């Protein structure tokens, strides 16, 4: 069954969109990532104009992360206090990021920089997580081996300490604020919710338990993507409501399923799966840069 999208001005198969939304929703619920870094290229592939894909994707992520957060709230795996601290940093970061983005655009080649930063960040985070979770799985297989105690490092020496009960942490607010800030900057430049950077940062930098990380990341993503949706709707007019509704119908259902799968998996299994996905995406983008494209030319919007 075909449906015509009023803003994208193309006709697409409704079941294909539902399926895509569902698939990305499952990943979102499982890993706490918005899924924008997967969905946006997929939408390009089925012929949605890039500007519409990016803006509409943000709107869809609002729905799937909200659905995911509700599922996590019932399991008490959302650290709202931590989420708010991250969000404050994130919104400041996003504002700086938008400014950096405009500056990069004025000197040209912003698209290239975005792709390179994707490759570098995805590759780095993916490899780190992969190695770490592989080690964790090996250790847990040895009988008698006990998980390491929480490390005490320089992070615990910083002032303005705060108790994050859900995460079982008593740390300074400075590291989460900085994490939120840097993710906010990157998210604005790269045009994504930033979950795939936020999740590893919370696990490795802040030392939060993996189960709490997913819900907290989703909590934070709702606000960032709602902000993005609103700015695209008012500035670029590229949010396609029909496309968003179809994608999010699939997405919210997927997110519920994903959250349930996530609970059943072990923390290190969850991390290794996310690592593989992030690495695969990084590899795909790297080959796009290095291999000769089959079509050298592309037709852009006529506004330049």
């Amino acid at each position, binding site marked *: *069954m*075909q*449906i*015509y999208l*009023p*803003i994208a*001005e*193309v*006709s697409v198969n409704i079941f294909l969109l539902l399926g895509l939304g569902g698939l990305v929703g499952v990943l979102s619920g499982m890993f706490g990532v918005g899924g924008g870094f997967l969905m946006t290229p997929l939408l390009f592939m089925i*012929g949605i104009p890039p500007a519409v894909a990016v803006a509409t994707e943000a*709107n*869809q992520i*609002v*729905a*799937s*992360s*909200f*659905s*995911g*957060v*509700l*599922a996590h709230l*019932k399991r008490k795996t959302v650290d709202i206090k931590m989420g708010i601290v991250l969000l404050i940093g994130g919104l400041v970061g996003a504002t700086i990021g938008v400014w950096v983005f405009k500056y990069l655009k004025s000197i040209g*080649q912003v*698209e*290239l920089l975005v792709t390179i930063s994707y490759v570098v960040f995805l590759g780095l985070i993916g490899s780190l997580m992969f190695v770490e979770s592989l080690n964790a799985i090996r250790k847990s297989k040895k009988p008698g081996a006990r998980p390491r105690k929480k490390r005490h490092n320089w992070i615990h020496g910083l002032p303005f300490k705060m108790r994050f009960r859900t995460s079982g942490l008593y740390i300074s607010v400075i590291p989460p604020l900085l994490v939120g800030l840097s993710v906010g900057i990157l998210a604005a430049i790269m045009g994504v919710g930033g979950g795939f950077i936020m999740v590893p940062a919370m696990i490795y930098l802040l030392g939060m338990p993996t189960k709490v990380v997913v819900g907290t990341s989703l909590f934070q993503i709702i606000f960032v993507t*709602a902000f993005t*949706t*609103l700015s*695209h*709707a*008012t500035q670029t*007019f590229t*949010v396609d*409501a*029909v496309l*968003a*509704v179809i994608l*999010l*119908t699939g997405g*919210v*259902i997927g*997110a*519920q399923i994903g959250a349930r799968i996530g609970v059943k998996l072990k923390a290190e299994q969850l991390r290794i799966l996310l690592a593989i996905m992030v690495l695969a995406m990084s590899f795909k983008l790297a080959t*796009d*840069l*290095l*291999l*000769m*494209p089959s*079509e*050298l*030319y*592309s*037709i*852009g*919007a*006529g*506004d*330049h």
Partner: protein
Amino acid sequence: MIRAFTLLLAVFAAPLAAQETVVVDLSQNRVAITANYAGSEIFVFGAVKREAPLADDIAPLDVAIVVEGPLEHTTVRKKSKTLGIWVNDESVEFAEAPSFFTVASTGPLDEILTDGDRRDFAIGLDYVVRRQANEDPDIDMQAFSEAVTRIRVKNGLYSEREGIVNLTAETLFDASIQLPANLVEGDYTARIYLIRDRNIVADASVGIKVRKEGLERWLYNLAQEQALLYGLLSIFVALVAGYGASEIFRLLQRR
């Protein structure tokens, strides 16, 4: 020499041309894009009106029908290899390239028409992208305009369908024109040319209005005119859907 000959022919053909006119109509002058729009078909039909009977030695009649979407400013970018990676490099702006273009004819275009006429009247894929914008001698403009055509042929937006116009007794003709699902709103035109001996002897043009309707129209207008409300509404719908799915799943799990 050949040019002088064709000129001479044109002079002789002139009184002939005045004798024939074309009458055309379309199965529909409006295309409504609704939510379930998945492409449509327009039937072009017409007749040749003559003031006097045809001469016995007159060349056979040919018909070409061009259906064209609104002309748009189009930017084309080309990737090239810089420091080992493929990046967007040169770009060319075309002042006028139609969003949709199809030409139907009774025979091969390069046989029934002269290249000059095909260029002047934009009949055929090789003349569809008008080269009017930033002319740069260092850039191969031809390659860029060919790229637009190639990409749009692949997307089903441009096509050339020779031999699909039915011509009956040199008087009645008809053709069915397919409009794709990824159609853009705007004022389309259908141009019809009668051709004899590689010369255009008569032509006519009819407008086709392509418009969004119903829900599509309403959403499009809302997004353009009340952007803030539209954005807030989009977020609200997203939150409601997220909540709805969560509740439904909770009810399902209780059982």
